[in-house]
């Protein structure tokens, strides 16, 4: 059961090897995981839209999609058909080539990051030695696509949205990389499968989140990841109340759907990487490894959707201040605390590391006290 998909791929490979001519033999092991990701990613995206609509609807005391199929399960397919039949509008002053290029460029990096995600034991498309670095570098390519979309549309809202998005992504990339650095230093490897292997033991619960530095690192990584993927409360790039829809204002039909596809695929991959780095990836008792992986990833996605249902959007200065004055110093202290945890003898390392983090947290909050929201008094409320 644990190796269900691995043995399935092996069977298909055997069949292919008997059919294909010899000089194409090297293609099958490359093409099969690739095909799996290319087919699986749009499927995941379709049902993430359904899940988000259902969850946010429950938070807002509605029912959500319930007309097409049982529980509205066929709604994403209906939406897909609708998107394909809509008119493809290109604005008069837009750069036609750039306008066409952006949606194609933005989906590619989102899907490429899936290559280094360990979906289960032995279920990784490309186990390269620099996996985590690859993930961060490739997901950074989305910035270029957002620029192309914002510039190619020839619309001031698109341009503003693109610039907000870049300021945000550049700022949040730094705390994100620093929070990953802790795990990389601990494991001594950049390979995602080695990081998961390092979290084995304790009956499948030896996850990094149960260390003080792991918990802080996880919170920093998760918040920075939510900002990287433009999720509420960090979705300033597409703030509906201010700049229409940001960088994808001028897109309709399937091109618009591709932007959403990129967003949902990167939400999945950020949550998957968070569970790989801090929640033990596919490690866990009883259930098969891939079930644990998807359980953890979808729990994190659920938390992101819960954020969306409950938090209001931040202001631009609050957003950038949170990255530079809150997350960044905390991430630096976290690296120090991880070093102390590693080198102080056993029972004391938890005490030293935790107290350092707690003191740093309160110091950072105190240092930022002028920026924190004051308690409002409503004079006319009573």
């Amino acid at each position, binding site marked *: 059961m644990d190796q269900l998909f691995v043995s399935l791929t092996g069977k298909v490979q055997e069949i292919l090897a008997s059919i294909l001519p010899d000089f194409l033999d090297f293609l099958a092991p490359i093409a099969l995981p690739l095909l799996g990701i290319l087919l699986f990613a749009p499927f995941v995206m379709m049902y993430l839209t359904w899940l988000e609509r259902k969850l946010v609807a429950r938070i807002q005391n509605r029912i959500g999609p319930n007309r097409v199929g049982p529980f509205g399960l066929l709604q994403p397919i209906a939406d897909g058909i609708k998107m394909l039949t809509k008119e493809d509008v290109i604005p008069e002053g837009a750069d036609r080539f750039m306008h066409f290029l952006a949606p194609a460029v933005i989906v590619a990096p989102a899907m490429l990051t899936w290559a280094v995600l360990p979906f289960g034991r032995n279920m990784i498309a490309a186990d*390269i030695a*620099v996996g985590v670095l690859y993930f961060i570098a490739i997901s*950074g*390519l989305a910035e*270029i696509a957002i620029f192309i979309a914002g510039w190619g549309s020839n619309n001031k809202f698109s*341009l503003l949205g693109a610039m907000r998005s870049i300021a945000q992504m550049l700022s949040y990339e730094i705390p994100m990389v620093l929070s990953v650095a802790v795990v990389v230093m601990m494991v001594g490897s950049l390979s995602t499968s080695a990081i998961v292997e390092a979290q084995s033991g304790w009956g499948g619960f030896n996850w990094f989140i149960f260390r003080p530095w792991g918990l802080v690192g996880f919170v920093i990584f998760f918040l920075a990841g939510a900002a990287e993927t433009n999720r509420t409360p960090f979705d300033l790039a597409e703030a509906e109340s201010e700049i229409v829809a940001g960088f994808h204002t001028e897109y309709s039909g399937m091109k618009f759907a591709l932007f959403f596809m990129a967003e949902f695929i990167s939400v999945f991959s950020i949550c998957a990487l968070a569970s790989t780095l801090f929640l033990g990836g596919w490690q866990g008792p009883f259930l098969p490894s891939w079930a644990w992986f998807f359980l953890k990833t979808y729990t994190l996605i659920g938390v992101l959707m819960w954020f969306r249902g409950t938090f209001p959007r931040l202001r631009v200065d609050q957003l950038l201040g949170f990255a530079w004055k809150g997350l960044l110093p905390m991430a630096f202290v976290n690296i120090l605390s991880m070093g102390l945890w590693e080198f102080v003898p056993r029972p004391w390392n938890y005490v030293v590391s935790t107290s350092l983090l707690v003191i740093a947290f309160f110091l950072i909050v105190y240092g930022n006290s002028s920026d924190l929201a004051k308690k409002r008094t409503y004079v006319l409320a009573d």
Partner: protein
Amino acid sequence: MLDKFVYIIFGLSILSAIGVVAFRNLFYSALSLVAALFLAAVLYICLQAEFIAIVQILVYIGAVMTLIIFAIMLTARINDKTIRASNQQRVVSLIALVVFGVFLVGQICKAQWPQVTGVNAMVPIGRLGELLVGHFVLPFEAISAILTVALIGAIVIARNK
């Protein structure tokens, strides 16, 4: 197979490098610079230097190019299609280019290229890190100091304005 692929990459990267200086539109130039840098990363992968390739994408495309495009977008008349890159230093840049080119070709011809036998020429990242904080610790620290100085200098210049 790989040899022919490498020549295709060479050709494409030279084309996109020409595009950087030949496009009339600044935004197109910046994007062809992105393409040139990305193709350089592909070349590193062909040389089995995956770490350098990933760092090339992370630093040059993820950070440097994003800042360059950000600067372009902050310029006035960004939506003007006929916006031209102004080249007022053609002679100076030609001289600099020729001097640098001669120096580079001379060095390439003079260098003793180590021959790697066998297929696997990959250096493990752990070894790279040990070398950086061991044998090459002085250049490494010097570069860090230069970057810090540049950062502080940029802030000082920006503050005076």
